[in-house]
């Protein structure tokens, strides 16, 4: 059990790499959207909020089907990308997009709550002292909401790592190319190879443990201010 096959290492490494890339990719957008939701009001805001949160409630397979429709060669978007040699479907970029779309709502929800908990008076005081909006955001708001941002990023990464339904539809289940831990576990269960499935499950648990633990540690050490 301890000596993992090359294939297992590849799957593990690939899942973590794309999961991290997906989380880092959505982090700036997630923070921006969460801040807008927490601090700004505009007509039909609740509609926009609902649309952003939709992937959270929809069955992942249906989200995957929509993504397949958007990025498949039959759609204008897919055709445009295809003409430029960009492949999404049955490609690792498909894994990245599926993970990003499915984990985005979790990031936004978590970060939004932490922004809402930042006392607006502190921001107002900074403004009266002459700080620009951007400066206030980075010096006051983000540091105070730091725990929520880390927690949101962690949640997003965990969701990305566990992503299955949207990934298999958009990126396929190609060993060595798009197969993530979740897809490989599913494949092994289907084939009745319980041992291999449990090995990958153990790896998933270890990764989850390391990430949750290190974020706890990070948050504790960052409590100084």
């Amino acid at each position, binding site marked *: 059990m301890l000596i993992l096959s090359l294939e297992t290492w*590849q799957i593990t*490494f*690939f899942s973590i*790499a*794309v999961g*991290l*890339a997906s989380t*880092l*990719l959505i*982090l*700036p957008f997630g923070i921006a959207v969460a801040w807008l939701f927490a601090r700004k009001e505009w007509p039909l805001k609740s509609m926009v909020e609902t649309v952003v949160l939709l992937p959270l409630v929809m069955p992942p397979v249906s989200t995957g*089907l929509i993504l*397949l*429709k958007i990025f*498949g*060669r*039959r759609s204008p978007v*897919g055709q445009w990308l*295809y003409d430029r040699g960009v*492949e999404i*479907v*049955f*490609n*690792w970029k498909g*894994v*990245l997009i599926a993970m990003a779309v499915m984990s985005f709502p979790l990031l936004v929800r978590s970060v939004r709550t932490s922004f809402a908990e930042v006392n607006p008076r502190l921001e107002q005081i900074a403004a009266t002292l002459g700080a620009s909006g*951007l*400066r206030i955001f*980075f010096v006051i708001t983000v540091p105070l909401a730091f725990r929520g941002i880390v927690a949101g990023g962690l949640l997003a990464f965990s969701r990305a790592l566990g992503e299955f339904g949207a990934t*298999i*539809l958009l990126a*396929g*289940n*190609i*060993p*060595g*190319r*798009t197969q993530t831990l979740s897809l490989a576990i599913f*494949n092994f*269960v*289907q*084939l*009745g190879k319980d041992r291999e499935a449990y090995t990958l499950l153990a790896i998933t648990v270890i990764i989850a443990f390391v990430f949750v633990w290190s974020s706890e540690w990070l948050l504790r050490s960052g409590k100084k201010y």
Partner: protein
Amino acid sequence: MKPRIAGKPGAALLAIMLVASLAGRARADEILIAAAASLTDVLKEIGSIYRVGSKRKVNFTFGSSSMLARQIDEGAPADIFFSADLPQMDNLDKKGRLEPGTRKNLLSNTLVIVVPADSKLTLSSPKDLLKPEVKRIALAQPSSVPVGSYSSKYLADEGLWNQVKPKVIPVQDVRATLAAVESGNVEAGFVYKTDAAVSKKVTAVYEVPIHKGPQITYPIAIVKESKKKKAARHFLSFVVGPAAKERFKKHGFILLE
């Protein structure tokens, strides 16, 4: 201020994407075969034999036949479709998604009745399913899953369906059927012969004769939009050749032809 905050994650993101792209890169001459999940083991073997002999690598994406057909229909870049289900192939054929003249009905499978390996029941014919000791029979959902509809149709042809029906526990798929039998929660179940062969915790007690059972077919074809048709044809001719046939047989498939 701003560049410092955007810079670090940006660089990390770039590095990760680079690594991920190296891990997931496909060479231009590598073809992709969309194949039914039940073919995973045998095709991985055939793929590696082919690689040794021809120095060409092939990739597979495994899933349910209906999902793969859906993806190909949306223009997913698969070069070959290997289905476990005839209607899915027919569907793509009707829509003009297959390369004309490349379609072949390659494999077949048979239905078997399985019981838990430690079962003391003696089942030697489908009629024995009517015995009172057989209380529950696991079957993949007859209304939607091919193996389930094949099984119920077979029992109907034998004139047993109406009596067996109250004992039937409909489950999700072949795997769920095997799991139910393995656990001993049902006395018997219907699965494909190739699936029964994988599990050590079940015994196949009865194989439905191929002429009596429903026609189970695994068709293969080249996808019309494939950009690597020459490589696809090369692999296809290998799959119908003697070395591949021997592997299929070893896994319990029946070769049509």
